[in-house]
């Protein structure tokens, strides 16, 4: 997608964008503003540390004052806070449109949308470039990473206007997006991972092997985890025409086992790859989820 965004000036959309903006800002500002830092060093005004001069280093970075005092050449290093590029890959397939029949339930898409907005705000706040790619069986929209503060509006608009539909085909999407991502950037994948694709782990490995830092947010509704329904129900798929009629009581045990196995699989596989994996069910307040994530990154020394 080109840098020129076309805004939908529908009043309802704008109000939703504003609301999302406020939610995201509150979420981030109220949490751990400033704690989240880029780990990449670069040229900036903020000094980081000295380093012994080695041939090849630019001479303009030699600290001549120190050379005068110590008769040794040192190079000044600065924080590279603006070179970090983050792409948020957001699942907008039909399955993300699930909303529990429980009145307390929340649309899974809304939860993911807020998370993406919050993360965008978080990164833009520290001058990192943030982009957004929305997908179902292909990339449906792509906002390239920018670091300008006004870019946040673009992202918010992109998030608010998306309508979940279609079938998840994560493998195809990763293969497609991998070519568009700059090396040494961060990819944040937000999805429910409810797909018939197999071998997703191979593509995750491919992402990592290309030097990308990958963060997975696995979002599920509590209904999808526990299958709490009762009675004869015909379950109709949100993604395709598949439907199955059964008594959930018959399959509950097996279903739970299946879904837990899947979660456990991603958790252990991501751990092995060095990929951050965060499982969030929509009943968990997003603040709590984000807080947990930031704390964990800090503890791992990635902040």
């Amino acid at each position: 997608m080109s840098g020129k965004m076309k805004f939908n000036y529908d009043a309802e959309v704008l109000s939703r964008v504003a609301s999302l903006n406020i939610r995201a800002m509150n979420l981030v500002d109220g949490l751990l503003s400033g704690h989240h830092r880029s780990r990449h060093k670069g040229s900036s005004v903020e000094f980081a540390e000295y380093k012994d001069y080695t041939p090849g280093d630019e001479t303009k970075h030699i600290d001549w004052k120190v050379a005068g005092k110590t008769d040794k050449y040192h190079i000044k290093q600065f924080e590279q806070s603006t070179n970090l590029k983050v792409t948020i890959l957001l699942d907008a397939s039909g399955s993300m449109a699930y909303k529990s029949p429980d009145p307390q339930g929340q649309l899974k898409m809304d939860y993911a949308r807020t998370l993406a907005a919050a993360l965008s705000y978080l990164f833009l706040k520290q001058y990192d470039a943030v982009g957004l790619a929305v997908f179902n069986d292909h990339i449906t929209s792509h906002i390239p990473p920018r670091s300008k503060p006004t870019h946040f509006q673009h992202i918010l608009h992109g998030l608010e206007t998306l309508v979940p539909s279609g079938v998840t085909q994560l493998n195809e999407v990763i293969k497609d997006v991998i070519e568009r991502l700059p090396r040494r950037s961060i990819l944040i994948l937000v999805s429910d991972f409810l797909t018939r694709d197999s071998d997703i782990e191979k593509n995750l490995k491919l992402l990592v092997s290309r030097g990308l830092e990958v963060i997975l947010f696995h979002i599920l509704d509590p209904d999808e985890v526990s299958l709490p329904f009762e009675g004869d129900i015909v379950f109709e798929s949100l993604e395709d025409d598949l439907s199955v009629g059964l008594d959930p009581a018959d399959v509950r045990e097996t279903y739970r086992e299946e879904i837990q196995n899947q979660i456990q699989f991603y958790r252990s596989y991501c751990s092995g790859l060095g990929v951050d994996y965060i499982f969030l069910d929509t009943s968990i307040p997003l603040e709590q989820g984000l807080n947990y994530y930031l704390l964990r990154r800090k503890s791992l020394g990635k902040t």
Partner: protein
Amino acid sequence: MNLNFISPLYLLGLLGIAVPILVHLLTRRQQKHLLFSAVHLLFHSQKRSVKRSAPNRRLLLLIRCLGILLLSLALANPIFSFGGPGNFPPDTPSASVIILDDSYSMGTRTGQTTFYASAVEAVLDLTQSLPADSVYSVVLGSAPGRVFQGWTDDPSRAKKILKFTQPSAQTTQIGQAFTEALQLLETAPQVDKRIFILTDRDKNGWNEDNFSSIGEGTRYPVEIIDFSGMKGGINLAAVEHVEVHQDFLSNSRVVRVKMRAINLSPTKPINKLKASLWVRDKKQTSGVLDLLAKSTGEKEFSFPLQVNTPLTGEIRIEDDLLAQDNHRFFHYQPNQSIKALIVDGDPKTVEHLSETFYLERALNPFSVSTSNIDPTVSTLAELPMRNLFDYSVVVICNARDLPFGYERELEKFVMRGGALIITLGDQVDPKFYNEKLGRLLPVTLKSIHQITRQDEPFRLLIKPSQHRVLKAFKGRTLEEMKSIRFNSMYSVEPKESAEFTIPMWFRNQAPALVESKSGKGKVILFVSSIDRDWSDFAIQPTFLPWVQRWVKYSARKLDNLTQQELLVGEPFVWKEPATGSSIYIKTPGGKIVRLRSGGEKVTFDDTFRPGVYTLHRGNSASDENSESQTIPQLPSGTEPAGAFTVNIDPRESLSDKISDEEIRSLLPEMTVTFSAGYQHREAAHPEEGFPLSTPFLLLVSSMLLLEGWLIRKE
């Protein structure tokens, strides 16, 4: 198949099935629809899960319904049988014509019985179960279709006439039988008339021509009762043709019997079908042949002929379910040798100048006897030392006269059946021939006609002839005879009231060959010489067969022993039997029949049994136009006169069956119904069959146990 109930009232219990259905419907939970994201996971889980609440409920419903169904059926006391109710037999007094196909294909075995036996059983069942005041008749459906039993109301009559019958060796001929049936029905007073056809539906027996004569407006119910579907009744192969040849150009005189067999299956090939050759009821040799599906294969057997006696035998193939077509008879009459005495009236010291040099070589062209003619050359002086009765034929060639009184010997020889052939020449004394042989010769010799050098030679008048000797000469051979040059010949003049024929003429209207009968023998006079003195005939290619055929003909060996191959039911016709003698036929069953002799041909119609029929000729002349009659044994003094074989028509063996549609198209105005024949017997006796109450009750118990287990599991 048929299911009959002894207590059908209990079948009302089937209404009880409504109870579990109602219970199921009333207790059915409302089904909700829910849009869900992880449906494929649910689907997988459902497959893995052992619990099945909803299907179990449906299974329970099914089991309960089945339980009630089986219980009702068990109480109704069901009897299972292979019968079908159909409309057999009729319910009201009726006239029924039963066409019973007794063609040989009905002899196909099925288990311990045959199609035919089952058909007979069905006929008996039908006749027993006809309502009172009904009449029936039985028409046989093999060629020729014929009434076997006229109208009768006695149910036991069918048993009397059919119980010990066997299928015939004839082919199916339903059309003819149907015509007979219609004629019978026209004479029946009953209102309800019907035709039953009990057949294996062989297609060859349903010729359209036979049905074309059915008049419009003829409408009777027709029931086709088909026996071809009976289990196990499949005919694999048949012997289609047998041919016998004799190898003359070798010392061994090998007889070769060539057989052709057909695989009747349209799909299955037959590997290594055993075939064997039987001669005079002894196995001579055997072999195997491979047959592709629906195709024929040939096999040749050979064996040396030890003695020159007639061969009677058969080819047999491996037995299958239809034995009739697994063998085929043959008869072979080897040529019998003819002893000929050649009297040389003009012998020379140089061999090839002798009068009989060419004749002797023509009669026996090889060093070994391969022509079946054994010539002995004699001079006139040696003649009294010979016993004429050792010979069949005497050929007198250019003899001036005969030893004193020898003409009487010749007369006796000819009167008793010997053949005398006389050829003329420059030595011949016409006075002697006219005076001494006057009783034998129908003509008198007049004078020699000779041509000068400038004259055109005498030539034979060549035209196709029906004479038994000359009919073999046709086409090119006949053309070759035109080139024979005769420079001398005798003119002859017929005697008064003499009976003779002139089979060959010269172009100048002079007779070339005169044939006459004398007593039982023949006298043949050739008016030219048999050597090269008067013609170049002796060195022409046609000379050898001409001479041989005249000798064989005069000795009554040429086509004299008749040999024919007939199919079952085809009449035997012998066009040229020796007149003045009785003809006897010995049938394969050993019966001896003296044939009615009426003119120039005899016929014999009773060829319904396959096998070899031998012909015999007796000395005593039978009365003209006397009827054929069976005699206990052959009269003494009869001599063999040939044989003919009667074999089944292999078309009947073919597996082609006529379809329902084809039958309906042949009988457009009739109401035709079809049923499998072997069902009827059971239908007539519903209590015969397998009772199913116990098995059904056992199944009910199983259903109860299964239901209990399912409920406990839930």
